[in-house]
């Protein structure tokens, strides 16, 4: 009964979620442009919905989808050639040039994804465009999700993607990875993108689920792939950071999907193997001549992950690492995290003072975690009215359901 229609439909849905971006990456290489590849992807899945319930699921569905998508495009260009002769040339060229991808290995498909990441992160594209393109094209995030992760409007993201695609086409950015000589320079933007994918999975910005394990797994997989292909301290640092954060995944939420703070997490649920792997990668990365921002963040995560209990946390080391991190990448979010670490080391008043300084400069005023952090510090000081007001500010800005529930519970717990 494996191929009965409802099962086939479920299989296609699953394939779409799990494989559509891999299929797209290969189609972009095979067809040479985003528009044709996106059309081919759509056609391939439409054909699967039609054919698979009767013919059964092919033994290599991914290769079938690529092959079918390519064939449908060549066919469509041929049909359009009745009105526009140029289409026939394109179709003939495609047929000649592109090898039928039916017998591709998984390794080649990984290469396609890596190649596509480097195209999306081409230095001729503005960095915001690189990030938006990768999240959209490789990871299939919606423009809303991308916008939320970057605290900008969805229309801005959509515009960035349209312009980036126009530039790739008009300026002639080739569908190739970088030559070895340009690899280091082009790696930095790739790492930033992987980092942001991970963050979106680890602390999903909207919706009902706090965690999107597929995004974290995807980002870690990309990190591991990069680490296999490129010997670079920051690749190791980034992979370590992702492994160390992800090691705490099962302890971060309860059965209801609510957030559990680091302080209250059951450390027995932490994935010791991932912590070991991450810690060993940080150690390797820290021996590099210059220590980068991902390595510093990994070192902070390692300090937390290796503390037996919350009380054993080495806040002094963590404050020091945050100070280095702030020097390396001045950013209000890093400043906020440093303020929280300083509050742990020196007392809540110092933290509140630092957070207020950030907000008074007009930064992070739309960022719910700034108010939530301040509220927690007020609560520790039993300044309940100020805590309530800050929690309400945070609640107004928070878009993530479990976070909203968490904030509401804290408000309810405050003594009247």
């Amino acid at each position, binding site marked *: 009964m494996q191929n009965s229609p409802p099962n086939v439909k479920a299989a296609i849905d699953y394939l779409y979620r799990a494989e559509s971006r891999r299929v797209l990456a290969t189609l972009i290489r095979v067809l040479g442009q985003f528009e044709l590849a996106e059309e081919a992807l759509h056609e391939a899945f439409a054909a699967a919905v039609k054919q698979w319930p009767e013919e059964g699921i092919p033994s290599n569905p991914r290769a079938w989808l690529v092959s079918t998508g390519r064939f449908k495009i060549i066919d469509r260009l041929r049909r359009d050639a009745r009105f526009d002769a140029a289409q026939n040339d394109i179709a003939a060229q495609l047929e000649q040039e592109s090898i039928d991808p039916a017998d591709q290995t998984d390794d080649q498909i990984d290469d396609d994804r890596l190649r596509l990441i480097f195209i999306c992160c*081409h*230095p*001729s*594209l*503005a960095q915001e*465009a690189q990030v938006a393109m990768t999240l959209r094209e490789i990871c299939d995030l919606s423009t809303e999700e991308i916008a939320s992760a970057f605290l900008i409007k969805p229309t801005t993201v959509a515009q960035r993607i349209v*312009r980036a695609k*126009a*530039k790739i086409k*008009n*300026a*002639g*950015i*080739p569908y*190739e990875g970088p*030559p070895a000589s340009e690899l280091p*320079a082009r790696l930095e933007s790739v790492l930033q993108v992987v980092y942001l994918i991970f963050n979106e999975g680890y602390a999903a910005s909207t919706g009902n689920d706090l965690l999107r394990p597929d995004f974290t797994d995807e980002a870690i997989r990309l990190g591991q792939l990069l680490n296999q292909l490129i010997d670079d301290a920051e690749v190791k640092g980034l992979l370590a950071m992702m492994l160390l954060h992800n090691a705490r995944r099962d302890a971060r939420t309860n059965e209801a999907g609510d957030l559990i703070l680091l302080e209250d997490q059951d450390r027995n649920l932490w994935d010791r193997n991932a912590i070991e792997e991450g810690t060993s990668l940080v150690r390797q990365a820290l021996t590099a001549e210059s220590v980068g921002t991902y390595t510093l963040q990994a070192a902070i995560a390692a300090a937390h992950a290796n503390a037996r209990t919350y009380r054993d946390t080495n806040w002094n080391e963590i404050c020091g690492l945050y100070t280095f991190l702030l020097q390396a990448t001045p950013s209000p979010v890093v400043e906020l995290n440093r303020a929280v670490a300083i509050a742990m080391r020196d007392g809540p008043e110092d933290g509140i003072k630092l957070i207020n300084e950030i907000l008074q400069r007009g930064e992070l005023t739309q960022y719910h975690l700034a108010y939530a952090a301040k509220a927690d510090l007020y609560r520790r000081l039993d300044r309940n009215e100020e805590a309530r007001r800050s929690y309400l500010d945070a609640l107004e800005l928070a878009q993530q359901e479990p976070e909203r529930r968490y904030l509401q519970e804290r408000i309810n717990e405050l003594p009247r």
Partner: protein
Amino acid sequence: MKYLCLVYYDETQMAQLSQQEWDALNRECMSCVEGLQNQGHFLDGAPLHPVASATTIRIRNNQVSTMDGPFAETKEQLAGYYLLEAKDLNEAIQLAERIPPARYGSVEVRPVRELMAEGNVSYA
């Protein structure tokens, strides 16, 4: 004597034109080129894709930096031009890196587009 005539306009203004108006302007350019060609005045010329398609290259301390967009500083003036044939932008960038003034100022790499009777890539 040879003279280089540089064409400037405000892209946002051009974006207001309808596709028909825009194609009509392009056809006007085509007949302008034809007229100059017939009289033996036209040596070379081409329209460019919008500034958004630009890549700027600078070389400082033997380090090449590649950035999106036209980033000539206002104190920099146009000093010359190279019309290059390259298979794609990566090759164009590598060729442009060999232009000596990249070490002093900047080299903006802009793709050339084709004038067409209709269906011209518009600014909108």
